[in-house]
């Protein structure tokens, strides 16, 4: 970044491609980056953001566009017909957040072909973290964590009431509930 504050222009998903095209035609013809964030817990969307620059003025003029992609239908037009290099960023966002870019390059970028899941979705449970001993599970003054009283969970592992030891009579937890409980920290006993 060049030190100035960027504020994103919010664009409806169906105008994503045309808005990017329009910005390029206005002179923002250098693609800087495209990224995605998971808005779960606030809204049921993923936010896709792109930053474009106008190199004529030393690259200081920037345009940031962003759009909210619905979680239950995470599909967005690819902008790689406008900026070829964006295809690479879209592949990364697609595999990490489980998005689909219409007209994009559907190949994986970083993950192995057999990997299942979308690792940067906040409800993604880091299962292997639940299976090995976490050094932070001990309380101050302890030299061994008592497994029967798991009071602290590492980031990425939900409370056991939500995942792992969930009451089998209950339906699996909603993604938002899983995401809310994977921040790590003290296990909150849920009031029933």
């Amino acid at each position, binding site marked *: 970044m060049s030190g100035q504050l960027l504020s994103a222009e919010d664009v409806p998903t169906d105008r994503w491609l045309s808005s990017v095209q329009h910005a390029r035609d206005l002179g923002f013809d250098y693609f800087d980056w495209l990224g995605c964030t998971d808005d779960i817990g606030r809204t049921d969307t993923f936010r896709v953001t792109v930053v474009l620059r106008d190199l004529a003025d030393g690259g200081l003029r920037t345009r940031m566009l962003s759009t909210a992609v619905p979680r239950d239908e995470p599909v967005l037009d690819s902008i790689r017909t406008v900026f070829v290099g964006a295809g690479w960023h879209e592949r990364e966002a697609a595999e990490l957040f489980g998005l689909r870019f219409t007209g994009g390059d559907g190949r994986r970028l970083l993950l192995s072909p057999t990997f299942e899941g979308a690792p940067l979705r906040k409800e993604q449970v880091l299962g292997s973290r639940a299976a090995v001993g976490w*050094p*932070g599970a001990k309380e*101050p*003054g*302890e*030299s061994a964590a008592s497994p029967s009283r798991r009071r602290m969970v590492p980031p990425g592992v939900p409370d056991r009431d939500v995942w792992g030891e969930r009451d089998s009579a209950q339906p699996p937890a909603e993604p938002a509930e899983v995401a809310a409980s994977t921040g790590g*920290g003290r296990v909150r006993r849920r009031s029933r």
Partner: protein
Amino acid sequence: MTGHGSIVLIEQNCTSCMICARECPSWCITIDSHTETVVDQPAGARARTENVLDRFAIDWSLCMFCGICVDECPFDALEWATPQALPARTLTALTHEIPDLSAH
């Protein structure tokens, strides 16, 4: 300027609060501690206990030198140091205990 070659533990500042071990993204800090009753209390004062550090270890084979532990310690018990953690022939030898982690 202090380099980022290794992290030292200032043992007398550490309260065994576990914050660094919980915040470390690489899970490479291991702490053992126990509680003891404080002896020199003024007469009539309520009995108090304190945590006593038994073991503090950093596994340099896992550490990614992010500095989160240094930032998070509320008691200034962890500090960056310039000398690099020494290489070793085995992975287990890269786990450094309190004497290895004390300021040089």
